[in-house]
């Protein structure tokens, strides 16, 4: 308890920068992670689409 009282005296109420830092970091990481996952998802979907198209084109001239 004496620690807490000491802290109270020492602590300026303006420790807002720390609060800001913690929230900024968390939100930034969430967004970056979501962006990373959705972008990879899109890339993969694009590749699948390209492969499909290539396969269809390959199939038509051959005339199965």
């Amino acid at each position, binding site marked *: 308890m004496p*620690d*807490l009282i000491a*802290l*109270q005296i020492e*602590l300026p*109420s303006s*420790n*807002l920068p*720390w*609060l800001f*830092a*913690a*929230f900024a*970091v*968390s939100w930034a*990481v*969430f967004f970056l*992670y*979501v962006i990373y*996952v*959705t972008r*990879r*998802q899109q890339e*993969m*979907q694009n*590749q*699948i*689409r390209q*492969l*499909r198209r290539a*396969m269809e084109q390959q*199939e038509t001239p051959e005339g*199965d």
Partner: protein
Amino acid sequence: MAGTEEIQQPTSEIAFQSKFRWSDMIRVDGRINLRGCLLLVTGILMLVNLYMIFMVAPTDAVLGHVQRIFYFHVPLAIVSFVAFLAVFIASIAYVFRRETKWDNLAHASAEIGVVFITLALVTGMIWAKPVWNAWWLWTPRLTTTLILWLIYVAYLMIRSYAPSPSKAAIYGAAMGIIGFADVVVVYFSVQWWPGIHPTPVVGPLADTGSLDGTMRSVLLFSMLTFLALLTYLIMERMALQDTVDQLRGIRFSLRRAARQDAIPGD
């Protein structure tokens, strides 16, 4: 050309999204878009949560505004633990059932668990600096969390270094099981470690019992929010893994078809 016919079937599953429509969030092709709905709900919850943390929760008398980190830090830590529990359960299920979905669940949970626990550690350090005047103290709880982080980073490493996807799955399951068992053991052994503070004195969890009612409900709401976020992220990550698997399947059958074509001679 028998190989290529198999690939054609799932085409309808991948809806070609040319333009974003808000209604797609809720229904796609007449089916309810579970992930979209969850994203919507999670987004709303996150915003409400921010309101709760900054407007509803009272300012801590002793620590001041910095105490509000608590409403992010504690749920992050607890939810990451939920994620690792999911890794453990999914790993056991994979060992017995050998179904890819369990492995995907384990992989997704582990990755997001690592993201969450990293954030829990970082927000904890940001909390500790003004309150304890040190970025880090070797308290049992912090030490356990750091070891947890190391174990699941090792989990992700073992997967990415494995020689094949099936080996990655089984090695991951091994690490998922032994890692979680170890976490419990580490927790106790570190508790009894005499070299450090036995219990966190000013730590966030030490005074949970003395939390006032509003603070407690804000904390509970925040936990709910992060649980929703965890679920959404896991689903998103599993969908990505599905696409990865699909792409691998197409590549594989293309290569097989090419090889079959090559044998008769072009």
